[in-house]
């Protein structure tokens, strides 16, 4: 009985799919697509000859997208929805690692049978600040210099990895990471919705773009990059913590 229902349902679904593909206005015949229906008209109208002029670092103000770094302007502005998906993929993989490696709440640090070097232990406490600040700098200047949220977040996570390697008693607050991750992810969506409200579409840049090359330019891009950096950093730090802890055996 169950099999029969499943069979009927899948056949019906297949028929619907085929019908919708063959005889539908949205899926035109091969070669007969009208791009104006599928892509926003403003992007089609734009061409090289309509360029208002050169973009000069530090002089040009209020361009369409204020980021001096072209990769950033594509990743976080034009294809920001894609980036939201990437961040979600990272979140899901972190969740999978957490599910696989520790199913309980109470975990203790994996005991290694060798002590860390003294110089490494003391030096990492000093170098930690430099590494972390460099990560923050990379995140905050994502729209001006090479870098951005993903490498900066990874550097923050690697500073925490350094502390884990250099001190065999060290534990971070995993709860704080989870909270930070959730807050950053939801703020990303909220910014997207604000773009939908204040401008026309999801994740649109709704702040003024400023002068190219200034710290406060490129509208919403730095904010999004800060959120991405926090999210990536906390996720990777959480993964590192998962790998270096073990379940507390309570007999």
């Amino acid at each position, binding site marked *: 009985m169950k099999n029969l229902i499943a069979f009927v349902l899948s056949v019906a679904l297949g028929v619907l799919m085929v019908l919708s593909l063959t005889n539908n206005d949205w899926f035109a015949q091969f070669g007969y697509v009208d791009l104006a229906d599928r892509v926003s008209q403003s992007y089609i109208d734009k061409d090289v000859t309509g360029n208002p002029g050169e973009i000069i670092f530090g002089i040009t103000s209020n361009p369409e997208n204020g980021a001096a770094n072209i990769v950033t302007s594509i990743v976080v502005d034009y294809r920001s929805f894609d980036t939201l998906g990437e961040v979600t993929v990272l979140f899901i993989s972190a969740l999978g690692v957490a599910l696989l490696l520790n199913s309980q709440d109470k975990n203790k640090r994996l005991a290694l049978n060798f002590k860390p*070097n*003294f*110089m490494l232990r*003391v*030096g990492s*406490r*000093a170098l*930690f*600040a*430099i590494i*972390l*600040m*460099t990560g*923050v*700098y990379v995140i*905050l*200047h994502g729209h001006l210099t090479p870098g951005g949220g993903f490498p900066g977040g990874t550097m923050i996570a690697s500073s925490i990895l350094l*502390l884990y390697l250099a001190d065999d008693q*060290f534990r971070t607050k995993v709860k704080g990471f989870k909270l930070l991750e959730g807050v950053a992810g939801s703020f990303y969506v909220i910014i997207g919705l604000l773009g939908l409200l204040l401008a026309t579409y999801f994740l649109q840049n709704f702040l003024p773009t400023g002068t190219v090359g*200034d*710290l*406060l330019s490129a509208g919403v891009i730095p904010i999004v990059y800060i959120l991405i950096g926090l999210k990536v950093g906390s996720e990777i730090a959480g993964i590192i913590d998962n790998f270096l802890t073990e379940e507390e055996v309570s007999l």
Partner: protein
Amino acid sequence: MKYLATFIVLFVVYLFLAGFTVYELILGGIVSAALTVILVKYVNFSIDWQFPIKLVKFIFIYLPVFIWKLLLANLDVAKRVLSPKIPLNPGIVKIKTNLQGDFGKLALANSITLTPGTLSIDVEGDSLYIHTVDVKGKNEEENRERISEPFEKILGGIFK
């Protein structure tokens, strides 16, 4: 006091990386203050009212000695590497130090690594284990006099 030291370190690193404009100053201040509150447990920077004097001592007394020793070390390495038969008499020796603070010992160990023919392997309590290319001293005192004496005198004045 610990908060102030952490804040200063973070702020200076940020400013050196980002440059000295007004926006950077404001943003760096905010970010460093926020991070200071979070991180103060994990770092152990400390500061007191003598810090400027120590910094001046560090730059003008310690650094020239350090750079001179680093140059000598490299000439020593060059001499060893370029001679057709490499002269070696290696060993691991243990020397005592009088420095107390963790950073003082770290600075001493780092300086020893970068001076001619020595490489600090580990520090335990107040004894340093050092691999040296050429064991000359017969006992601990002689080794100490040869390896760590010049730095210990200077660092003792800076890190107590």
